[in-house]
């Protein structure tokens, strides 16, 4: 068993009457990426803040690399690199000056920081921009600098709170190309929250949060298996007729349009019956079918079903 770097036990955090985090436990060993997903307001950001010590838990315990956050907050925080969606950079300082500032704040010894800065800028691909002011970097470069700042003190744990929201696909890929090798080269544990299901698929394990609780957890394959055989693709004309008939079917729980086709979520075990029945009904009503078949479940389908409590 690899080192358990993140051990969060029964975390609770309330704001007035709202239970933002309501009894969440997660464990993340070295070398693992743990993805936190869930609808807006599920408590993802609060969980991340509890893990990084920016907020105190009402009840529960956060232990990072064996260090208890409540007893030794300073030492526990030294184990973490944290990058949020909106992170602080000093726009008037250069890339290198930003790095120096954060290195000092994070307690990196002065004799180490010059070599560490070179190393980390090399790693994120900003070495040639070290004298540029942060305010003059592109969005993708700022994000790389944010990552460099989070990594400058060689943390064992990387906490990423929606690091790629609002970022274009090319920049998102570049970001993940930096993160994934860290698992192997530095044996980090990574906890990342994301609204992108393709990113969740890349995680070793995924935890799904709703209303402050962790309601499902597993590898992406395990989560996908919960909805296996429950998505049926439907395409044809006229579109309104198809949608109306699908919605009226007893085994169809939800109808979603995807461009020129619909995805139907059906009751477990009913996919074949739905395909036969709906095909006949559409034909009888004068419609025509281009495609009507069960398709592979996407993690997004699982997400939607879990959000609505339909698994």
């Amino acid at each position: 068993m690899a080192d358990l770097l993140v051990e969060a036990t029964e975390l609770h955090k309330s704001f007035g009457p709202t239970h933002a985090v309501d009894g969440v436990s997660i464990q993340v060993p070295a070398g693992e990426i743990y993805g936190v997903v869930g609808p807006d307001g599920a408590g993802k950001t609060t969980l991340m803040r509890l893990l990084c010590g920016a907020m105190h838990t009402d009840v529960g315990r956060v232990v990072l690399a064996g260090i208890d956050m409540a007893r030794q907050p300073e030492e526990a925080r030294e184990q973490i690199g944290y990058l949020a969606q909106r992170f602080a950079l000093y726009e008037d300082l250069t890339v290198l000056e930003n790095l120096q500032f954060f290195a000092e704040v994070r307690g990196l010894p002065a004799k180490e920081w010059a070599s560490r800065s070179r190393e980390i800028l090399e790693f994120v691909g900003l070495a040639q921009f070290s004298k540029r002011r942060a305010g003059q970097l592109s969005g993708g470069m700022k994000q790389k600098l944010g990552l460099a700042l989070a990594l400058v003190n060689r943390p064992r744990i990387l906490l990423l709170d929606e690091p790629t929201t609002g970022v274009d696909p090319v920049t998102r890929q570049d970001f993940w190309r930096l993160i994934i090798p860290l698992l192997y080269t530095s044996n980090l544990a990574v906890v990342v929250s994301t609204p992108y299901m393709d990113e969740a698929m890349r995680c070793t394990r995924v935890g799904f949060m709703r209303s402050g609780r962790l309601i499902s957890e597993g590898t992406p394959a395990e989560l996908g298996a919960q909805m296996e055989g429950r998505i049926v693709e439907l395409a044809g004309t006229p579109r309104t007729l198809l949608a109306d008939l699908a919605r009226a079917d007893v085994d169809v729980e939800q109808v979603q349009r995807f461009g020129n086709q619909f995805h139907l979520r059906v009751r477990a075990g009913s996919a074949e019956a739905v395909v036969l029945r709906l095909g006949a009904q559409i034909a009888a009503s004068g419609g025509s079918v281009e495609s009507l078949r069960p398709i592979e479940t996407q993690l997004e389908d699982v997400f939607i079903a879990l959000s609505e409590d339909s698994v």
Partner: protein
Amino acid sequence: MTTAIQAENLTRRFGDFVAVDHLTFEVQTGQVMGYLGPNGSGKTTTIRMLLGLLHPSEGWARVLDYDVVTQSERVRARTGYMSQKFALYNELTAWENLTFYAGVYGVKDRKQVREVLDSLGLTPVQDRRVQDLSTGWRQRLALATAIVHRPGLLFLDEPTSGVDPVARRAFWDLIYDLSSQGITVMVSTHYMDEAEYCAVVGIMRAGKLLALDEPAKLKRSLPGPVWEVYSNPPVMAMEALEALPGVLRVGLASDHLRAVALPNVSAEQISQGLTAAGVQVAAVKPGTPTMEDVFMTLSTAVE
């Protein structure tokens, strides 16, 4: 009238920087046009010119048959605009926000305001302050403020950025509703699955419109087939895959790699090439092209 947007050599320079570089395109009435491109590729500058908020340095555009320079007020009276940063008043209720925007657009008919509120399902939250609403509701209200004057054309600038998958799907249902009522929609997004939902998709890079076509046609226009490469760990195989002859573009998919390669490259060649580079290959399978493949190939192609 069948053309909602017409642009000819539309160009905008800021000093030496060409933000939008000779765009020529048309969008048909009632179409949903997806507008993709990396950050800083000129999408928002294009939308600002089409709204008549920014004058072109060169070229021209007509929106709903009005010239965007000489008739910009008419353009704005007939178009709606919603950005990723919802321009809502946090201290005001949903209803107050909507009536405020109705006033800005000169809509005096309360019945019309009520209809917009109802049509977007906002009635249950009409008396709640914006600061107490979830992101999903705010997004819906921001859309309501953009259509309260019944525009013929709607510009949506990354409307679903930072919104969870459930709210994103619900939002697209609303876009389809508007489109089926004959409203033309131009929507920019970073979500490639959303690009698949559009009738036509334009892809920008460095101010230039690289392609504008139906998603299916764009996918057929890839320079070669797409291969799905499974190896463990996938990211370690990326450089080796990129270095193989005939491989044009490598991307990280969910838990595997995708490679766009020239037609003469076979699965065996990819597999053998990777093995020779010391990568453990689990499988190389033909993949169905996606809009992400198209986007990645176009937006990272060598100049």
